[in-house]
């Protein structure tokens, strides 16, 4: 029973982790709380659905097109709104409100176009299940977890080992100085948004397959959780986002199995507050030094 709950928790958690990585990457580079991330997640799932059902092409081709389109949407949000704000040296808060507005636009556009009823989604990762003791693990769950791990490792290598990652770090520290060092800041920031779009789309489509349905509330229900997962792990730290997501997922499933389903969110969020009380920078966050 407990093992089964942990397995389920791992699955939910790896989904949170997938979206939280994109969120935390944008945050790490721009210190921007990107509210439109959960909209990208929903957008990705819906676009996959649209291409698959409307054109009848192979599912994974539709998935690929959807990933590209969601990346483009992420790029668009940066290119047509946030970049203009950066040019004006606008306060950080206006960037946040902009992403909130963008998320409203995307969410409602989806609602208008597809309708608010939930749609059934075929599961293409259904390769049966395996038994570990008394627990049942489906291949879908394993694939989601593996995908989360692979993407985390790839992105960690990119951000912490490659030149692009170094550029991202430089932009995070000081944009003007980074520009003077010959870094094309706009290009790197756009790339970050594209990557976060890719991740959101992959996560959205995989969740749609796991639950076999999509609806227009899927974005808003996950939004606050990916933020929580990223903060729990320490904002801007990629492995932190993954651990935060997994911990949140496991806590959630265990609480709803053994304590109360209704109070699930209240309890898991209270734990988050407690963790922040003890570790104000999250589990893996670096301590910020206050200077006057």
């Amino acid at each position: 029973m407990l093992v089964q709950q942990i397995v389920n928790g791992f699955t939910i958690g790896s989904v949170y982790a997938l979206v939280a990585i994109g969120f935390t990457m944008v945050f790490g580079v721009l210190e921007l709380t990107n509210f439109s991330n959960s909209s990208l997640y929903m957008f990705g799932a819906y676009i996959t659905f649209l291409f698959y059902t409307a054109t009848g092409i192979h599912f994974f081709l539709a998935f690929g097109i959807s990933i590209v389109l969601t990346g483009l949407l992420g790029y668009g949000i940066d290119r047509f709104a946030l970049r203009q704000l950066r040019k004006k040296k606008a306060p950080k808060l206006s960037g946040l409100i902009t992403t909130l507005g963008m998320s409203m636009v995307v969410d409602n556009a989806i609602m208008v176009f597809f309708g608010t009823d939930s749609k059934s989604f075929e599961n293409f990762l259904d390769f049966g299940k395996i038994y570990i003791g008394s627990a049942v693990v489906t291949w879908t769950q394993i694939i989601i977890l593996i995908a989360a791990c692979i993407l985390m490792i790839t992105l960690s290598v990119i951000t912490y080992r490659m030149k692009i990652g170094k550029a991202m770090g430089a932009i995070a520290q000081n944009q003007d100085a980074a520009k003077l060092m010959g870094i094309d800041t706009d290009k790197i920031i756009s790339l970050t948004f594209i990557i976060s779009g890719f991740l959101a789309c992959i996560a959205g489509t995989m969740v749609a397959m796991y639950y076999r349905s999509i609806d227009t509330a899927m974005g808003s229900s996950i939004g606050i959780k990916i933020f929580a997962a990223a903060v729990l792990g320490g904002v801007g730290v990629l492995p932190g986002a993954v651990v935060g997501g997994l911990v949140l997922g496991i806590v959630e499933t265990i609480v709803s199995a053994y304590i109360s389903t209704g109070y699930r969110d209240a309890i898991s969020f209270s734990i988050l507050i407690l963790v922040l009380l003890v570790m104000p920078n999250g589990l893996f966050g670096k301590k910020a030094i206050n200077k006057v």
Partner: protein
Amino acid sequence: MIEKLSTWLVRYKRTLLIITALLAVLFPWIFSSKYVLRIAILCLMYCMLCVSLNLMAGVLGQISFGHAAFWGIGAYTAAILSKNYGWNGIAALLMAAVIAGLFGLLLSLPVMHLKGYYFTIVTMVFCQIIRVIEINWMSLTNGPLGIMAIPKLSFFGVTLKSQRAYFYVILFLLAAATFIVRKIIHSRMGYAILAIRDDELAAGAMGIHVFKYKVYAIVISSMLAGAAGCFYSLYTSYIDPSCFTNAISNNILVMVIFGGLGNIFGSFFGATVLTILPEVLRGFSEYRQLVYGALLVVLMLVRPDGLFGSVNFKYIEQRLAWKKEKAGGDGHE
């Protein structure tokens, strides 16, 4: 354009204030349609919420994404007290403010040392926790069904039924809230809070009791929101947990930022425009939220500080006074 408008506003401040006050008092007699009055009442209530949030977000500089939680706590307190225990309006209002203030105190303790996005997530999560409790504590809050048939507001045996009466009640509450917040901003405490906003460490080094003033600002802000919540539940006589979601918290914050952080006039403006706007857009029906979101993005692109965020009314006032003095002086010589 905004600069010109602001100068104009400051120049004719007294006349405009009198005209606005007169208009506000006469409003329910000019417009008698129930629909218009209802929108006006909601407008004033959102103004009150924005003024209270502005104290926390604009003056103290802690951007809260959970203001609807306090509003909801006030609403539920008033609803339960007046329905189950037969409390009268004034007592319920005071108690709603006190309970919301207590929760504000409770929230202020964990967020004391948190800044920026950590504060954001804790307030967001706080709003969610309160909502989950509202949904699940069946015996107290009647869960997702909400509390129905909350007795209407009554003063000394007179029950208020007409929209007009409620209009005057919320007008009075808003005036009181604005008065309190203005008094605070222009007092020693207000300067201390502003100093904390600009630099917490430096403020502490200057001898300002950071902890105390932070708690004061958060508690007062949440008390005012609680009072607004009490009004809401007694006015609509029906509340359920879906009234107090994170989306509503975001809306209130957007109103404050739309008008300009730390600016009471801006808050009024933001709350009024963004309450009326969805009603005007009702013709677009399903595209309403889409247009609203797009407008937000455009506004931020045009004025990143909000409409009146970068306007310093005090400076304009001083400059005008100086010009006047100079002109007067020239005349004498």
